[in-house]
């Protein structure tokens, strides 16, 4: 059966249809999940897409972490289910405490909207299973608050555990250690600032995001099979 991907929609989210289209092109089914929904029982993975959840009031992701759906996202993450936050979704995951650190304003104080080189640093995550470490992907970025920061202890931990899964080739925003994407200790929760869904077909200028989305579908299928086995 094709994997079922839940795509969370907060008021202000604006990439939910792009993500849904991209995963459907690759054979998955997508379900938009409204932020007040409290169950993710019928999906095998969840994506928190980009946008401006709850207007990004107070801080990016600060209000979104209080939406009812986030309890279900946290439960899925705790059960080992794939959870991917893209751009604003990454900010939401850090605010919710599902990933460490925070994303602050770009060091250059400019909104960056361009395609950048992103190097795969680890294939051990729900989003990079099919990617070759060392491969450079051309992926669009589109953010003002993508400057990843964390404590020295957190950074040491991320490095030691190979949890920096993506790095910028040419750092566009001042992120510490050129970090573009990280994963959780269980490697099933991944956050990244670049938009793989916007690089999912040659007509969009790059199809380099496909390998990441296919990796996510793999992870969703594995999780589905594993949880199905537990249930039966």
């Amino acid at each position: 059966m094709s994997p079922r991907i839940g795509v969370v929609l907060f008021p202000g989210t604006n990439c939910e249809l792009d993500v849904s289209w991209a995963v459907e092109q690759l054979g998955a089914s997508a379900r938009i999940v409204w932020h007040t929904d409290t169950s993710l029982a019928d999906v095998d993975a969840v994506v928190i897409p980009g946008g401006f959840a709850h207007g990004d009031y107070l801080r990016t992701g600060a209000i979104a972490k209080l939406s009812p759906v986030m309890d279900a996202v946290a439960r899925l993450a705790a059960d080992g289910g794939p959870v991917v936050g893209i751009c604003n979704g990454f900010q939401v995951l850090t605010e919710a405490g599902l990933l460490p650190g925070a994303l602050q304003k770009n060091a250059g104080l400019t909104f960056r909207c361009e395609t950048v080189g992103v190097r795969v640093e680890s294939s051990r995550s729900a989003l990079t299973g099919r990617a070759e470490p060392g491969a450079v992907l051309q992926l669009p970025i589109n953010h003002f608050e993508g400057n990843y920061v964390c404590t020295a202890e957190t950074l040491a931990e991320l490095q030691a555990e190979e949890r920096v899964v993506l790095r910028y080739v040419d750092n566009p925003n001042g992120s510490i250690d050129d970090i573009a994407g990280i994963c959780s200790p269980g490697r099933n929760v991944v956050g990244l600032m670049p938009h793989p869904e916007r690089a999912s077909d040659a007509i969009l200028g790059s199809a380099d995001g496909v390998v990441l989305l296919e990796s996510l579908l793999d992870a969703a299928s594995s999780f589905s099979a594993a949880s199905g086995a537990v249930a039966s």
Partner: protein
Amino acid sequence: MEFSVRVDVTHRPGILDPQGAQIERSLPALGYRNVNQVSVGKTIRLVIEAEDEAAARTELDEMCRRLLANPVIEAYTVDLSENAVDPQVHVRA
């Protein structure tokens, strides 16, 4: 008791403050060359009811940690003052 509260949220020491840095680079253009340590934060004002000042402070500290500030990148200070009770309102209540 009712308290008027001002929460100041600032960047934690050691955390890059790109807005503060930009302002610090801009002020000399107006001739102000004697400025440093510029920091941009935000102010949140609110009114809270609590048993006493200690209770208010405990609750405000929790609010700051859980929502008003992100402890990873932000520090906060809480200032509060007791609101005078309007005797007329008090009598009617």
